[in-house]
């Protein structure tokens, strides 16, 4: 059995990288998303349907991560937190240069509404013992990305399983 680095052990269950979205949830990106997949759901296009069914316009649930991707450029920015920064921290700290994501689960909470300003943070849930797969030897880890609205309500939790590894020699 190989001991897990104590610093990494301390990350498990810790709330890391809290970030607020750089802009409010807005219809322009909702239209862009629906247009990109030809999603004709009237919840996103028709005000009467939106009012009747969802008490106003909401965003498609699967857009949840889009609200947190930083602008490609912004003034005065020195460094930016990557989506899934914990994943990259693990690769670096555990000296595992390669990584793949094996599973992605999203559980949706209250609807994301136009005008919301969302927040997110990441929680490392687990790191496995060393494992060897056909890719190489490394560790599996589970990371939750928690999304909340400005009222502190959960709008979704995205869970990733990653495998960081070194290729077989």
């Amino acid at each position: 059995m190989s001991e897990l680095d104590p610093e990494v052990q301390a990350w498990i269950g810790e709330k890391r990288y809290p970030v607020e979205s750089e802009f409010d949830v807005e219809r322009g990106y909702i239209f862009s998303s629906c247009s990109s997949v030809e999603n004709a759901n009237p919840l996103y296009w028709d005000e009467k349907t939106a009012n009747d069914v969802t008490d106003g316009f909401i965003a498609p649930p699967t857009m949840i991560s889009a609200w947190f991707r930083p602008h490609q450029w912004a003034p005065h920015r020195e460094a930016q937190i990557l989506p899934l920064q914990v994943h990259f921290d693990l690769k670096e700290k555990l000296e595992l240069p390669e990584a793949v994501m094996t599973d992605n689960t999203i559980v949706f909470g209250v609807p994301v509404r136009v005008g919301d300003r969302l927040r997110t943070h990441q929680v490392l849930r687990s790191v496995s013992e060393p494992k060897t797969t056909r890719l190489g030897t490394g560790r599996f880890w589970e990371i939750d990305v928690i999304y909340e609205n400005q009222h502190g309500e959960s709008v979704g939790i995205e869970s990733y399983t990653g495998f960081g590894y070194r290729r077989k020699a």
Partner: protein
Amino acid sequence: MAAAASLTLDRVESGEPLPELAIDVDVSTVVLGALATRDWRPMHHDKDFAVERNGTRHIFINTPHNAAYFERYITDWTGPKGRLGRIKFRMKDSVFPGDTMVFHGTVDGVRTDDTGCGWADLSLWLTVGDKTTTECTASVALPVGENDNPWKRTRENWKP
């Protein structure tokens, strides 16, 4: 715009298939999806980068765009009152310009939870030719009657 009809739980049976959906993918499809999901990484818009750095044959559809397609596929079937509760997917291979991707699905089960919320549990998969590129499971809440609306469920009555 006329109000769209919504599927109700009593009209769904375990084992029934969802209608297939075929999409021809071109460069614009991939780039539109990358921009809509605010994914500026070059492998989703720069073919030279994708080929030379990623070793793929072209730019390819990104993960959140793939998820948006699955959401569209599900709600095309349910109508606007279908409320997605949970989705899990595993991308096994990439989708490139020139591919025709076909979405498939089947109803694994129909249930009502302890809050009275109706659910259809789905198995979904995406194919290109004879290859499955993404496997997915999803649970979508459906009205249990004409006057029910899963979107009106609040925190204590929403257990996806």
